[in-house]
């Protein structure tokens, strides 16, 4: 009887069966402890890994923000340069000095007779093909253009 085997009698030694059971139980506990410690260590490592990644990403983000700011500043400088070059005084200088253009000296107004109004085209009613032709076109993949279609 196993139950009798594990039961300890005061003043008597443990039976061999009881030892094996105890050993098995100890091993189980040890395994469980190791698993728990391993899991805990894994969790810690995971946590450390995640924390490191987050911190690393944080620094990357800061660097990217700085880059973005720098690009924004560069864009602002370019916008300013563009606006400076669009200055009318600069354009005038460029046009007259570099391209030899001259200010408008003479303006003549021309009288132009308005031509007669163009007649409005009358809308055409779309032609309806018979059903058998439409069915045949659909089967053969034939398309037909007709007057009045939008360009």
């Amino acid at each position, binding site marked *: 009887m196993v139950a009798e085997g594990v039961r300890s009698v005061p003043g008597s030694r443990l039976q061999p069966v009881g030892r094996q059971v105890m050993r098995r139980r100890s091993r189980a506990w040890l395994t469980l402890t190791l698993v728990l410690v391993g899991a805990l260590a894994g969790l810690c490592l995971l946590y450390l890994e995640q*924390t490191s990644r*987050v*911190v690393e*990403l*944080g*620094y990357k*983000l*800061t660097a990217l923000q700085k880059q973005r*700011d720098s690009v924004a*500043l*560069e864009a*602002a*400088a370019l*916008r*300013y340069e*563009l*606006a*400076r070059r*669009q*200055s*009318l*005084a600069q354009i*005038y200088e460029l046009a007259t000095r570099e391209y030899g253009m001259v*200010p*408008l*000296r*003479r*303006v*003549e*107004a021309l*009288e132009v007779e308005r031509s007669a109004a163009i007649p409005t085209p009358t809308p055409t009613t779309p032609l309806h093909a018979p059903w058998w032709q439409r069915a045949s076109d659909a089967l053969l993949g034939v398309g037909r253009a007709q007057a009045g279609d939008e360009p």
Partner: protein
Amino acid sequence: MSGLSARRLRVLLAAFVLFSGAVSYRVVSFAVLQGPILAQRAEAFRYREDIVPAHRGDILDVRGRVLATDIPADRVSAIVRQVEDPHRTAQLLAPLIGRSAEEIEAALTQPNREWVVLQRQLDPEVSAQIRALGLPGIVLDPEPKRAYPMGDFASQVLGFVNWEYRGAYGLEAEYDDVVGGVPGQLVGERDLAGNVIALGQSSWNPPKDGATLVLTIDSAVQYLAESVLDRTIQEQRAVGGTIIVLDVQTGAILAMANRPSFDPNRFTAVRDPALFVNPSVSATYEPGSTFKVITMALGLDAGVVTPETVVDGGAYRELPDGTRIYNALFQEFGPETMTEVLIHSSNVGAMEVVHRLGPERFYDGLQRFGFGQPTGVDLPGEVEGIVNRPGTTGWSLATFYTNAFGQGIAVTPLQLVTAVAAIANGGVLMRPYIVREIRDGQHIQVTQPTPVRRVISEKTARTLSEMLAEVTESYSTRFRIPGYRIAAKTGTAEIPGPHGYERGEGATIASVIGYGPVESPRFCVLVKIDRPKGSPWGERAAGPAFAEVFRQLLLLYGIPPSQPVNGTTGEGRQP
């Protein structure tokens, strides 16, 4: 145990006690005595607050051209204790930052200073040069800088931004809350290098960038006005002037050119701060004969005169107290119609109109036209002008009669343009405005034209326009705009001084005000030349500039001529 060992042990014990005592003292000192202060310092170091400046909004003209924007710049500072050789540092920095070497050295050797700003708003090229020097203790920090790409273009309208990055004059000041934005704030736990720790506690209140202003100013018209004004001032050897172009239907200001002006990019170089003020709204002058347009409008509207009413155009009008008020150059025109009163610019004729109106109707009319009160334009520093009404200390019968031809009354150029524009559009006074749109992210606020009140009837406005068109035709020997009917009136105003009106060369303000085309008025233009020496008269000194502005304006906006033109229509000059 031997005696030697015991002694060694005692020495060791004493050393240990001393060391422990020292350590304990430091521990107590750090943890108890200086604890709160050190904790505070550590907190301050770890949780530093950074103010993140907001980007100031751009200012654009009606065509989208950039008139004011932000550009990157740097501020150069020194950490005094880290500067190894102040003399050499000063020598190297001086030519780059525009300060003397002595001044910089003095700043770098100041006792009890940890930090000193050496120069602000440096150009990127200068920053790069300073960075390349690698001077110990010299630090560059980015800061925004306001830039005006077109230099002195419309400078008194735009204003500028001061060292504190706040709008100081012009639109920059008027719309500072709108374009300035709201700075952000970053409070976070930082590492030794000052970087925010991602996992630390932090709070981020982002900055709100300023809105973009779109003006009614058309850069093409503004450039035209400024160019013509510069040339006229040079030709007439004048001290300054103003040209305003207003859209008569809406009250939108298309151009507001003033001279002398300044370059807002270099506002620190300006010695006279009076240059920062916009004289179109902040300075008053006696309008002289251009004011007869208003007098005549009131007379016609009240029905006391018609264009055909004939008055005796003698050389003067004698007041009950014996005071005589003369025409310019003591001219005598004989009997003249009201149209001729305007053509001759007869003071006597204008006095007859106000005589028939009486003070009450005259001054009520002036008030209706907006004189003696701000126009409400969205520009800072607008003044009311001076209109002395009966019962006030500055009023007398002589004032009443001289007011008829624009003396003894002070107006701003914008007041006069706004009032004449009311005649041009059929009798409705419009509130002038200069900001067309406020673009704040997705939200766009568009300014709607605002009618203030009707000042004269439509019929009166039409009648007066026809009369003024005849006046312009009478100037054809001096200036003309072939193909178009323009309503205009010249003025030659004397300048009051402490001892009466000034005399001699350069003692007048020559001006022309007008609108057109008469059939369907679009623009009202005022040309005002201060103290011309070429000719004192409005017709000669300001007339050609007025015609040039109008001619180019009509071309620019593609308005066809309304009258047949023989041969060549317009002879343009350089803008």
